């Protein structure tokens, strides 16, 4: 109730502000003898001054700068992913304002701000906690007037934030979130996801892993006990049982567990042939390292369905021979990858991870959609993003589906290298076994898989 009150109060202020802005802009034009800032530069920004579209969410933007919110885990088990995401977000904001990186590759972007506005940003710490993430996002919307915010890892934080986005009519560009629910049962009109999901990981992983280890095996799953882990273990069970394997047991572990030894001992005692560790970030590094310490890899094959570079770096040689999936690799041989990786390395002296690329891409996708729409008005930006197809993101052809806001795209199936073969400088921790391509190897129709449960909600201008 209080939130509704706040929202309507802000809407009233926005409407009044928009009306006032139009009037003041005219007055300012008289006083200054011309346009004095990006708002009046004749490139169509008059629409953002409130003349073409009504006030909605944090539209229209007040002042010369559009504020973006970058809400990432700076503490908690996913803090390393969050740190890399934040570096990429800041790099994206810099490129949008000053050129460089993908801005020089994408025709929609100018390098002189977005739609005439300078890009400003605020950062927040989700602490890898859904409630904290929602509060932080709420501050970005209420206090900082963010026109768009982005973040992720974990999926629980992403789902909480995109729920708020729908309620407040402020766009949320998902970053790292892999739960089926994000674009399934919890999908929203105001949320978009480029990251693939657990369902697609199952599709990509099962054929390759079952071919490598054989048919008719038994597997045991440990999974992080929240939306992502739950949907991932369900997808692993679905696709590996369809491939002829059978699940012995599936055990939840609390997010942020330090010591997995007892869970792992139970897995060994189960007599299963394969162990799935559905953990991510620090948890993933810990569980796979402790599994190898405990000698589990001598009795069982280990699979870590979702990988990334910070996690692999934390686990070191423990990932040798371990299969998993990732969304991108800085060593891929294509121009967008090279351009982004070089810009990131030049700025920060390290190789970007796949979460960093997601963060960079989410910001660029939003900015490009605003440019194409010619306005920050959220419903128009949403319509630009829906059904958009692109192939300049470094991972082949991608399409942002209109039906569930899930990107259909390729996935990398990877296998960990030994400690001697790993190269931290180039971010090489695994070999890419296969680039599982959409639609041949991964993907699903709008009426099946997680999409079958998705109802997006309203644009806000109906």
């Amino acid at each position, binding site marked *: 109730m209080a939130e509704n009150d706040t929202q309507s109060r802000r809407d009233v202020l926005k409407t009044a502000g928009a009306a006032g802005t139009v009037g003041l802009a005219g007055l300012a034009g008289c006083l200054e003898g011309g346009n004095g800032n990006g708002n009046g530069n004749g490139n169509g920004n008059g629409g953002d001054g409130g003349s073409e579209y009504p006030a909605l969410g944090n539209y229209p933007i007040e002042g010369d700068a559009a504020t973006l919110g970058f809400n990432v885990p700076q*503490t908690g088990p996913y803090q*390393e992913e969050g740190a890399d995401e934040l570096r990429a977000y800041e790099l994206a904001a810099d490129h949008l304002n000053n050129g460089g990186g993908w801005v020089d590759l994408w025709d929609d972007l100018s390098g002189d701000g977005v739609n005439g506005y300078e890009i400003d940003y605020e950062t927040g710490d989700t602490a890898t906690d859904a409630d904290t993430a929602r509060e932080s996002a709420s501050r970005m919307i209420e206090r900082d007037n963010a026109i768009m915010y982005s973040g992720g890892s974990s999926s629980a934080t992403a789902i909480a934030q995109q729920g708020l986005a729908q309620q407040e009519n402020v766009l949320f560009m998902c970053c790292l979130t892999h739960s089926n629910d994000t674009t399934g049962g919890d999908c929203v009109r105001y949320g978009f996801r480029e990251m693939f999901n657990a369902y697609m990981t199952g599709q990509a992983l099962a054929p390759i892993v079952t071919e490598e280890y054989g048919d008719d095996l038994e597997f045991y799953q440990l999974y992080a006990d929240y939306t992502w882990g739950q949907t991932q273990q369900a997808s692993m069970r679905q696709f590996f049982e369809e491939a002829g394997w059978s699940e012995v047991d599936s055990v939840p572990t*609390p997010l942020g567990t*330090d010591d997995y*030894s*007892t*869970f792992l001992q*139970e897995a060994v005692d189960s007599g299963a042939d394969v162990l799935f560790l559905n953990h991510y970030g620090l948890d993933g590094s810990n569980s796979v390292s402790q599994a190898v310490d405990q*000698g589990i890899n001598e009795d069982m094959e280990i699979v870590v369905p979702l990988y990334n570079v910070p996690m692999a770096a934390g686990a070191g040689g423990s990932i040798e021979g371990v299969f998993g999936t990732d969304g991108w690799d800085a060593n891929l041989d294509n121009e967008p990858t090279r351009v982004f990786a070089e810009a990131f390395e030049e700025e920060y002296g390290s190789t970007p991870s796949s979460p960093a690329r997601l963060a960079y891409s989410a910001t660029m996708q939003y900015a490009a959609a605003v440019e194409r729409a010619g306005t920050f008005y959220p419903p128009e930006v949403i319509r630009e993003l829906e059904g958009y197809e692109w192939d300049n993101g470094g991972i082949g052809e991608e399409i942002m589906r209109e039906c569930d806001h899930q990107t259909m795209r390729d996935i990398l199936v990877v296998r960990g290298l030994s400690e001697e073969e790993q190269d931290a400088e180039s971010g090489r921790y695994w070999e890419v076994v296969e680039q599982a391509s959409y639609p041949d190897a991964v993907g699903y129709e709008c009426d099946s898989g997680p999409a079958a449960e998705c109802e997006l909600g309203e644009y806000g201008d109906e």
Partner: protein
Amino acid sequence: MSVVGSVVGFMIQTLAVSSIYILVAIGLSITLGTLKFVNFAHAAMYLAGVYIGLGIALELQFSGDIARSIGLGNVGLDLGFLAALAIIPIITFGLGLLMERFVARPFYDRPDTDQILVTFGILLIVQELIRAFVGGRSLTFSRPAWAEGAISLGPLGTYASWRLAIIGITSVLVLAVYLYIEYTDVGLAVRAGTEDTEMVNLLGVRATRPFLVIFGVGSGLAGAAGVVGGPVFSVVPEVGVGVLVPAFLVVVVGGVGSIVGSVVGGLLIGAVEVGLVMNAPTWSSVGIYALAAVVLLVRPAGLMGAVEVDE
């Protein structure tokens, strides 16, 4: 697996989980029992053990914002794990003496809330200083080569060698401190002080020095816990807080001021955690809090303690 095998396996697992908690809890418990000082900054000694120990044993990478701005690179003595295990308790013993003199002593007569605020604040400051200099990302604290891999104990299961090594190291350290307190003059003064500090002073025994020494010994144990726990838990700035909470619960359950209490409390906490993981994993993280609550209700002084926690 046979019933005997299951029981022994459960006990080994419990010992492995409990060891680090016990090492940290002993210092907390003694300080609370003798000096009536609630020292949450004790976990900073664990942090010192982890990070300085990593620098002594291998190499410490300084990649925090401040370190980058001043061009601080990697620093490491590469002396090996055993050297770190020998040196760290001495360093943290010294740090403990400094903490007693400059942090604890001015707050001995202040309310518990003041002590909690200042010591928890110090822990957070240390944590953030580490983040600023070393960085927030997880570092790898490799276990020594002689403790890599796993050992099969036949029907009792297969265990990480390092886990078994931790049980051994913890046993030796705890036994040494126990003997020191039971059979030395310093220990006698400490034990008497735990029972009745005022009477010890009236009898002409200067309790200040034994208390100072025991504060340092507790800090040394926490530092050692950092070295042996480094290869097990994540090496991140938050690990101090992560270890502090279960260690404090060990004190609550075992009783204040008692080494035996800390061991018993640690084993109980470990047993509950392991038992729940085996049978009701979703409850494993809340089980230890439930145990602490039950013990506080039934025996407010803890299982082996003479002083109530809130006194």
